[in-house]
């Protein structure tokens, strides 16, 4: 159940250029967090008025909540100034999260900081599999060793070829899907990243006849379903369409639900 909690910063760790991991003491919130859920952060120092910023949960252990962020604007730059002991107002855990009982071989597909909820998921899924991480360059490829430590096989693709193979992450994805197909195994896709990637992953899930869980990254205002700023056209099983709220009805949707 969601709460509005005063968290305390434990510390920040630089990852690659521009990317940071923020650890906070979040009693009552961290314990309840499930992979794919997010938190809505009131960044201190942006007073009196700045909207909260939503972040996928990168990890939760005991009462520690871990977030991953990239310094891209006013809010994340200010977040970067947080020091150990600083209080931060956080609402969460929010949203539905990924299912934790896959019917097939889990295949994780991350784009940039979309790796955050998948790293959390990798530690909570009962079976290990392959994780594919894509980014523009090596700096956008995160959490590789974290996945490896958990026993996952990591494949990397960068658009500029600075790490792993050159090109889009959908290339190694297609190879993995072909391999599983030949082995007679059913994959189950989990993805988070920009809309273009999610759409490509969703199309492949539908083509392969397997489930594809896509975590949408939309700008949000309230985070709890009240303001209707982060809506998405969705399809029910009977084919009728409806307008859902990414924050409340998602952010994770099955590929067939989304009307792009």
């Amino acid at each position, binding site marked *: 159940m969601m709460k509005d909690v005063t968290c305390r910063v434990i510390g920040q760790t630089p990852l690659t250029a521009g990317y940071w991991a923020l650890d906070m003491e979040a009693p009552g919130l961290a314990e309840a967090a499930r992979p794919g859920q997010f938190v809505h952060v009131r960044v201190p120092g942006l007073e009196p008025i700045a909207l909260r910023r939503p972040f996928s949960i990168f990890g939760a252990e005991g009462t520690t909540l871990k977030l991953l962020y990239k310094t891209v604007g006013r809010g994340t730059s200010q977040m970067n100034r947080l020091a150990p002991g600083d209080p931060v107002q956080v609402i969460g855990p929010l949203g539905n999260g990924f299912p934790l009982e896959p019917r097939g071989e889990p295949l994780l597909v991350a784009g940039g900081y979309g790796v955050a909820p998948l790293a959390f998921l990798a530690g909570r899924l009962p079976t290990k599999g392959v994780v594919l991480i894509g980014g523009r360059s090596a700096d956008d490829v995160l959490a590789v060793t974290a996945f490896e430590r958990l026993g996952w096989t990591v494949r990397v693709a960068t658009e500029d070829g600075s790490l792993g193979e050159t090109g889009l992450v959908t290339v190694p994805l297609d190879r993995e899907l072909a391999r599983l197909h030949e082995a007679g195994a059913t994959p189950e896709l989990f993805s988070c990243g920009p809309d273009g990637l999610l759409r490509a992953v969703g199309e492949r899930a539908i083509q392969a006849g397997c489930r594809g869980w896509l975590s949408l990254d939309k700008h949000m205002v*309230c985070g709890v379903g009240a303001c209707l700023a982060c809506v998405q056209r969705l399809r029910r099983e009977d084919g009728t369409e409806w307008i859902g709220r990414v924050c409340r009805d998602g952010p994770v949707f099955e590929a067939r639900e989304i009307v792009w």
Partner: protein
Amino acid sequence: MKSMSDLDMRVDLGGIRMKNPVTVASGTFGYGAEYAKLVDVTRLGAITVKGIRLQPWPGNPLPRHVEVPGGMVNAIGLQGPGVEGFVRDYMPFLRTTGVPVIVNIWGTSEEEYAEVARRLSEVEGVSGLELNISCPNVKEGGNAFGTDPRAVASLVAAVRRATRLPLMPKLAPNVPDIRLFVRAAQEAGADALALINTLPAMVIDIETRRPVLANKVGGLSGPAIHPVAVKLVWEAAQVARVPLLAMGGIVGPDEAIEFLIAGASAVAVGTANFIDPTTPLRVLEGIEAYLRRHGMNAVAALTGSLCMTNPATNVEP
């Protein structure tokens, strides 16, 4: 220190009986249930819900909002479930709160407004109607009615004939003289007036040279509009014979108290709900503390208590 019960916080907002003067602005609090886990909604003076029309309405394409210094610009476009969907899906929870429910209504014709009002009149638990005649984000309806005093008078009169529920038009801020609209609305049968709605606004992405909002334009809310709202509430209060519900940029008790002093009987917290959902309750507690500090025992004593005399001469300028 006086106990809570020594203060009379009750407000009669044109027939909407509130136990305290603090409600929420339409569109910033969903239908109440969304925030119920984060804030004790039963402590609110009233719950004002998102605008609804007769039929379900999809709203605008995304992006629907953008943050700006001092607030945000939104163009949600009044997405909503229609009267039937609202009554079926949201009224059951709202009834459990025991708090007056103010339903914000809109339409694209006088007939639609009147029909929505007629249907809601039969719904148990609806305490009043806020007539949305000032939303900048829908092509028809909304602001089209709100910027012509004759159109306001005609619309209010039409809805008045359709319902006995307390009727509270929400006035547009972007008019040359708010007093004309106050007079037009109250003479046509309004029981209270709400002001202000968002200010029409636009944001451009200079890299792409495109409007940031899919709707191109939207409504500005947040602390940036607060002084604008105070001035309009003060002007409205000079000619109003009905109580005023004031909103616009409240982030804490101070802005709310300003509105009360300017002439409002009650206040609504809007954009601040998104940042701190406990704002309405902080505002309430802050008003109570202010009354105690100033030796006042009723919030009504604060309404319209603006001092206009020159402190040096004690003469009105």
